[in-house]
């Protein structure tokens, strides 16, 4: 078995910009804002960074390709810098690059910065898939004219059908997920959306992609987040409360979800596979009992629902019961999206994974203010990129 990187890497500094419609901030501004906060948090200077990874997806509407936008914006001193793009896993995968660099012993101090400047696209939602590069030139012809909400709506259609849930009942359960996240987001000054909402608000919102309405969808925003990691054995030299990486796993689909008949579209196989690997790496036997809090990829309410099952927190088909029981609320057994989630932060693709890690880092250090979660043993983050039928997922577990 591979050994993994459990307790070999520590985070000693993090930064996260306010997320939102940052009309007057450039992509470079966001890189710098997240980086400066992380440097100050770690008590380092830019010259201390030995290698860096940058995560951006829609570079055509912000800073452009390659590592240069980051190295030039931060004036990094001719060190190795690599750009990472892996759909919505981009931010976490840039963090993985930095973690592996120090875990391997190649470097002592490494940086990961994720950023996305979505609001310059000129219209609501993500950039149109058929125009951006995400399908490739062949996929542009054969892929259906889908949007992100539609791709995930298909999972809700299946989920309701498989578990014999009426559309009304299903929408009401999904609404509770959004209501919970908006409550948490209202407590977070860095979130994009700060408004508490009711179940009726969600149910009465206009339909975007049936059965998902506007408030089943996460926001779209600009933002950036950064992490500085070091070898675990030197972490205490920098600060008294470093946070350790317990597991970091990524799973990319083999193509069988989309093309082979053993996938039922009521779960996401890559999330499940990454979770199994991560629990093994972190030596977690019973995630429902051991995980203290989570930031999962709630791009849409249905995504959060099935993720709760794929992460083995709720049994198959039973996430609805846990949601109804308040299991995932801020004062519940496993608070989920304590910072407000993608729902309230929006989803600047390259930044989201690092934004989730930022919340877990602050929570585990006990610095989350009025959102502070009691159980500070282990925090989990999860990203899901692509479509439910063909995706790449990451699971990261942090702890003291």
């Amino acid at each position, binding site marked *: 078995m591979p050994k993994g990187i459990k307790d070999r890497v520590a985070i000693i500094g993090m930064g996260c910009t306010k997320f939102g419609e940052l009309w007057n901030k450039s992509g470079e501004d966001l890189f710098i804002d997240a980086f400066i906060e992380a440097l100050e948090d770690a008590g380092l200077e830019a010259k201390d960074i030995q290698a860096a990874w940058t995560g951006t997806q829609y570079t055509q509407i912000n800073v452009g390709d390659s590592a240069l936008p980051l190295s030039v914006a931060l004036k990094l001193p001719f060190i190795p810098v690599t750009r990472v793009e892996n759909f919505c896993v981009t931010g976490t995968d840039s963090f993985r690059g930095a973690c592996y660099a120090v875990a391997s012993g190649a470097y002592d101090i490494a940086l990961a910065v994720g950023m996305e400047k979505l609001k310059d696209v000129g219209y609501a939602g993500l950039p149109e898939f058929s125009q951006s590069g995400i399908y490739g030139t*062949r996929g542009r012809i054969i892929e259906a004219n889908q949007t992100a909400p539609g791709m995930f709506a298909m999972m809700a259609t299946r989920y309701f059908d498989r578990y014999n849930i009426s559309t009304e009942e299903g929408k009401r359960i999904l609404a509770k997920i959004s209501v919970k996240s908006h409550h948490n987001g209202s407590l977070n000054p860095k979130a994009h959306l700060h408004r508490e909402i009711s179940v009726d608000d969600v149910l009465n919102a206009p339909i975007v*992609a049936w059965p998902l309405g506007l408030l089943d969808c996460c926001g779209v925003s600009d933002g950036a987040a950064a992490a500085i990691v070091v070898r675990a054995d030197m972490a205490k030299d920098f600060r008294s409360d470093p946070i350790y990486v317990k597991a970091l796993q990524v799973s990319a689909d083999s193509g069988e979800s989309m093309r082979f008949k053993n996938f039922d579209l009521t779960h996401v196989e890559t999330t499940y596979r990454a979770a199994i690997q991560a629990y093994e790496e972190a030596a977690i036997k019973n995630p429902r009992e051991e995980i203290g809090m989570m930031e999962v990829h709630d791009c849409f309410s249905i995504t959060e629902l099935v993720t709760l099952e794929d992460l083995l927190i709720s049994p198959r088909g039973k996430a609805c019961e846990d949601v109804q029981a308040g299991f995932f609320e801020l004062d519940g057994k496993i608070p989920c999206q304590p910072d407000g989630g993608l729902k309230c932060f929006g989803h600047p693709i390259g930044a989201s994974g690092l934004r989730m890690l930022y919340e877990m880092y602050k929570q585990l250090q006990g610095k989350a203010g009025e959102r502070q979660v009691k159980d500070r043993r282990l925090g989990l983050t999860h990203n899901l990129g692509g479509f439910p039928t063909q995706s790449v997922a990451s699971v990261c577990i942090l702890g003291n």
Partner: protein
Amino acid sequence: MAGIVSYGGYIPRFRLSRKTILAAMGWFSSRALSGDKAVANYDEDSLTMAVAAGLECLRGIDLSKIDGLYFATTTAPYLERESAAIIATALSLESEIRTADFTHSLKAGTGSLLLACESVKSGETRNVLVSASDCRQGKPGSPQEIIFGDGAAAFLIGNEGVIASLEGSSSISYDFPDHWRAVFDKFDRTLEDRWIRDEGYTKFIPEAITILMNKYGLETKDFAKVAYPCIYPKDHAAIGKNIGFKPHQIQEPFLSSIGDTGVASPLIMLAAALDEAKPGDNILIVSYGNGSESLWFRVTEEIEIKRQNHTLGKYMSSGIGLDNYEKYLAFRGILPIEVGFRAEVGPTRLQTAWRERKEILSLCGSKCRRCGTPQYPPQRICVNPDCKAVDEMDDYLFSDKKGIAFSYTEDRLAFSISPPHMYGMIDFDEGGRYVFDFTDCEPGSLKVGQPMEMTFRRKYADEVRGIYGYFWKAKPVTG
């Protein structure tokens, strides 16, 4: 014996009531037609309808035996780039094949049918598919807008298993300028109806029929059915009557249910006549346009075996009303609706489209020789996690396979000319699955598990580069 081996028709699903057009655009029209016209969906054109009719015609036919495809239309999507070659690829015909577009005259349908029969008769070809299709656009408020309808019909011409043999023909050609469209025109121009009726329809059609009857020593009573077009309903009946045909011999021209389908019109009527023909019947079909052409077919015993598979009936009866004139104009690209940034089309890489033409135009996937798993798009390494055989694939067509809607959504964010845009995952009955756009279905009508079939459609028009993107969509099973 050369003649029709198989046939199929296609009428698009929407019916626009002429009352709806008149309510929006009614002004003086000396002979307003009543009833409906068939209207192609926003993602259909004459090329896609020719494919639809071709698919109906070729059900159960060994495609490797087809060595010709003729496409007849006056509304080809390209002025230069052969539609027949695109249609042949969509129908998965082989590349060693004779293809040609017949165009520029409403008699192109009968002309292509005649040449196909003669080519088979000569022995140069064995089986030639003829698909005639038109999607003509009248200018808003014009009589043509009211008269024209959209539709297609396809005939496989061969010399084995013939259901109706070609026994004779006649052709006349005149540069009769009753209607025309120059390269810079979007819409047909036309002259006064009375002149067209008196100098055109009522002269050329009887002339062609008379020449044919004289040539072969036939009388009107020898024919079970005579099918000919005429855009004036009252005069349509009179033309046949004046030649000596009884009302029961005259094939219904579908003017009040479909409209004048242009090049396809005589061929759609021929398909309808074959639906009701008996062995030994003589059928005469006649076209009109820059003269006229008449083709005499004799129905054989084979009709009783083959007819039930090929009928226009399901398309005739499955039409649904399009009760919105503005939507019709938007479908045809006449009303400049707001389409937003999401309608912008990324560059089409024609090199990619050419290399992957079987995957794209033929909806050809692969089937693993080792484990039997069908998969789309074609894979080199088998997707079955328990197999993963490398390079053990055979071509496998999905275009003719049925499936179910495994899941679906109605998306109001995605751009569509006819929102909400619908799509979902299709689970094919015989294996394989993929996510496809849906078409020809109404919001609120879909269910998980609904039977679906594949249909060839225009996916987008890349106006910046002058390219039409064609691909397959899923639709609820018709009939």
